[in-house]
């Protein structure tokens, strides 16, 4: 298989995160997160709600500034990039957001063409053809003229995916691909993700809390819990882990901690005393 040029020039990991620390007010959301994503790999970031997995994604995308640690995309520290370098880097990244984040004022075709329109100077017809090609990939050809409000949940995700891959990115980020979808549509989407990876040789970071989906598509899985990494490993390694918190996640065990009466009283009275 032919190796894309971008990968030959940077043989190292496409994403490198070292000791990432992020805070919201005084509260630490991510604490010392480190991980790497190799070219062509599907890395699934898994964890329960509030584990910080969506936050991690937002920092990987450069939407916020980290409070500590370092994020490297294609070997470049993103905190030191100029806006021009960011622009160049953005062309190599595709993102499919949780709710699709299609632009509501544009039809599907216009949504998919948007990155082309902003980054290239192709003529209208070429853009149409390219957008159609990508819509074909996600089985959405012929729906160009629908508005996002007219689409079903699965169609929104697929249209968002088409927009994310229209620039042929080297990294594809995917936030909760199966959230809010019925199992059949979610399974379709998983297959689609694998097909795109094979066809385009793209690295993927998929954030999800769906176990089945994670095990099906992942090369490696990062398990996040309360802002820390519990483990990084292959599907089998995660399945075989004996870490109790990972086991809880896998077996859907509730993890209400036993209530310590003294601690509980102290928490209750502490707030009152401060006034």
């Amino acid at each position: 298989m032919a190796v894309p040029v971008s990968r030959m020039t940077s043989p190292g990991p496409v994403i490198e995160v070292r000791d990432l620390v992020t805070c919201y007010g005084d509260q630490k959301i991510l604490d010392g997160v480190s991980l790497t994503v190799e070219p062509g790999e599907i890395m699934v970031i898994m964890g329960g709600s509030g584990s910080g997995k969506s936050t991690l994604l937002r920092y990987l995308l450069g939407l916020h500034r980290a409070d500590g640690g370092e994020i490297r995309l294609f070997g470049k520290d993103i905190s030191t990039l100029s806006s021009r370098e960011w622009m160049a880097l953005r062309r190599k990244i595709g993102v499919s957001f949780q709710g699709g984040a299609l632009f509501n004022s544009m039809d599907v075709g216009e949504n998919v063409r948007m990155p082309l329109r902003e980054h290239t100077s192709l003529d209208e017809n070429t853009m149409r053809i390219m957008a159609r090609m990508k819509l074909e990939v996600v089985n959405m050809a012929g729906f160009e003229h629908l508005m996002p409000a007219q689409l079903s949940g699965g169609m929104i995700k697929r249209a968002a995916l088409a927009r994310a891959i229209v620039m042929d990115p080297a990294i594809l980020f995917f936030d909760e691909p199966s959230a809010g979808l019925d199992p059949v549509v979610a399974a379709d989407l998983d297959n689609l993700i694998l097909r795109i990876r094979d066809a385009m040789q793209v690295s993927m970071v998929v954030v999800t809390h769906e176990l089945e989906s994670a095990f099906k598509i992942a090369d490696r899985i990062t398990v996040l819990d309360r802002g820390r990494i519990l483990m990084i490993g292959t599907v089998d390694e995660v399945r075989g882990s004996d870490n109790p918190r990972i086991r809880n996640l896998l077996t859907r065990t509730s993890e209400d901690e036993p209530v310590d009466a003294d601690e509980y009283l102290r928490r209750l009275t502490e707030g009152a005393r401060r006034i």
Partner: protein
Amino acid sequence: MAAEIGAARFRQMTEAVGRKFVTGVEDFGYAAALLVESLVWLLAGRWMQQRVRLAAVAREMMSIGVQAIPVVSILAFANGAMMAMQGIYTLRDFGAESQVISGIAMSVTREFGVLIAGIVVAGRSGSAIAARIGTMQMAQEIDALRVIGVSPVRYLVSPILAAMLVMMPVLAILSDAMAIVGGGVISMVELHISMETYLTRILASLAPGDLFQGLTKSLVFAVLITLVATSNGFNASGGAEGLGRATTRSVVLCIAAIVVADMIFTFFLSR
């Protein structure tokens, strides 16, 4: 004990005031940064491969300006007529009813024409812009823009700013004209003069400075409405309720901002 509670309450109060003040300064700084950034995109975007699209500007001009024409016309006409009625009634005691014409000419061009246009635009577009950007913010569309590599300010704010800067003066002039016509209709009936005489006297009592004062204000209003509405949209959070709050806040702040700015400008421009 009582003193202790009093002290605690006092401290809470000062803390609250301080916090409000800090957020106020923050909001102000945010708006200023927004203004600078959107101006930079408007003027220099062409050379940064991120030009502001004329189609977007035209669309905004349509929704901000053209579609506001009927409301502005009606309000301005009614306001001009009311001024004439009140003026004639008040001045009748002094037998100086006809002075109402120069009164209308001055107050409309300097003050009320532009103020009416401003309030209509603040009410119509101030809410619509905040709602649109707020919705985009909550649906992660703003994030999507950023990861595609499109500056949200360039894409969303700059066209609005350009459209406002063009349409506000136009609306202000329209508003002036309609208010003068409104005053004229009443004057014709009450003072028994022809429209022609009325208009000649209006023109005679106007100096270019009067019109200029109104137009200057219209540009200031354009900037204020744009900044207040867009920054409220970008900072919207908290679901449907938060969106409603941002929209309301946007309209109220827009109107407050233009009225206060109007007062300040009048103070300086009419010395």
